[in-house]
């Protein structure tokens, strides 16, 4: 008997009102699905021609490239709850020098101010406090919580899970529930939010741009 996917991911009898929104992106194919995603910046968002390459997000020489759900400021699409949502990302930051990767939830269009909670992966810059670290970061309130991932491993392929809880957020790297790959902070966005993936240069230029591969992204309300 064929079973529905619906019945495998929801409790029996989940009502239409209680059914939670979900997005699953496997970054496979000829090009980024631009019906779903908007790409922002003068870099690029292309599919990699390499095994497990997925999406290759490339920043400009000095700046940022991101993808999210919002084609314009007036057309923001933010279906995820600031107090109950999860983002799972499998990604690899290619370079360690002058590169800053941030993936998570934001309330704003990319050119405007807003609140965010992110997983921040930063390479060596010019002595910035986040150098060579993977952190849980937010600006509501200002939060930077380090994981203990070794600096030598920050540009490896990792599985990241970012969760927005009722009055806090957590970051888990490679399934850690405590200790080395785990961080928690009392921070949340201040309104509904959208997922975004971002790669940028930090305190220096990179010939050819900063780069990150993404092979999976899943986001859902809890």
């Amino acid at each position, binding site marked *: 008997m064929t079973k529905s*996917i619906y019945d495998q991911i929801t409790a029996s009898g989940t*009502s239409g009102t209680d059914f939670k929104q979900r997005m699953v992106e496997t970054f496979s194919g000829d090009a980024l699905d631009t019906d*779903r995603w908007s790409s922002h910046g003068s870099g690029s968002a292309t599919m990699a021609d390499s095994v497990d390459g997925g999406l290759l997000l490339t920043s400009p020489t000095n700046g940022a490239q991101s993808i999210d759900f919002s084609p314009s400021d007036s057309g923001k699409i933010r279906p995820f709850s600031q107090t109950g949502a999860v983002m799972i990302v499998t990604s690899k930051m290619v370079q360690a020098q002058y590169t800053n990767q941030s993936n998570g939830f934001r309330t704003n269009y990319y050119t405007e101010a807003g609140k965010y909670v992110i997983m921040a992966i930063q390479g060596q810059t010019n002595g910035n406090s986040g150098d060579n670290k993977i952190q849980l970061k937010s600006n509501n309130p200002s939060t930077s919580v380090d994981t203990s991932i070794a600096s030598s491993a920050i540009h490896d392929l990792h599985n990241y899970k970012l969760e927005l809880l009722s009055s806090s957020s957590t970051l888990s790297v490679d399934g850690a529930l405590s200790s080395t790959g785990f961080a928690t902070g009392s921070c949340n966005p201040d309104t509904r939010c959208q997922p975004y993936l971002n790669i940028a240069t930090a305190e220096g230029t990179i010939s050819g741009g900063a780069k990150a591969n993404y092979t999976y992204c899943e986001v859902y309300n809890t």
Partner: protein
Amino acid sequence: MAYKQHFIDWFSGKSGASYWNIVNPSGSGASLKGKDEVNGGMIMTSGTGSNNNGFCGFNGKNQFSRSGFVQIAVWRLDPSSSGHSFNQAQCGMASQTNDNGQDCAHWMIRNSQTYIEYRTRSGGTGSFISTTVARDTNFHHTKMEAKSASSYEFSVDHALAATVTSNLPQSDLSPFMKADDSAQVPSVLGIKYMECYNT
């Protein structure tokens, strides 16, 4: 058993996927866009002019067997509709490329009616039948299952509403959504999940 066709859409993102063919059998401007609301999914709007009938389907690619399929959807007559009694939204399976007038099996929420309805048609024959579930603008879980070519089950909010054995489709089917405003713009269908598979 060989793998059978299985379709799923979470309706998450800025707009509907390109596998949806969006047309206006009448009027113009039908669209399928993400909604800026927690758990809002996407909204299919009837159009921007008057007397719009917006239809969103698979452009006549009928990959689901009339004698053995399941369709599950979580959808609503979206509260951003104008609220006029002419507003209506439909979700289900049809064999046509642009409207649901012939072979079809689907759900319907009409502002002119007290209850959520369903309908099957064999050719052009078949009429709307009311459930006992009140019409509103909340999301509802609907399920249709073709147990055979001569028996379809309709369930709404996980309760069996009816087993239909007459006026069933004579052609294979594909999923569709429809928003029709009959000059009272806009009519808006909201949806956050659809799954179809052959059994």
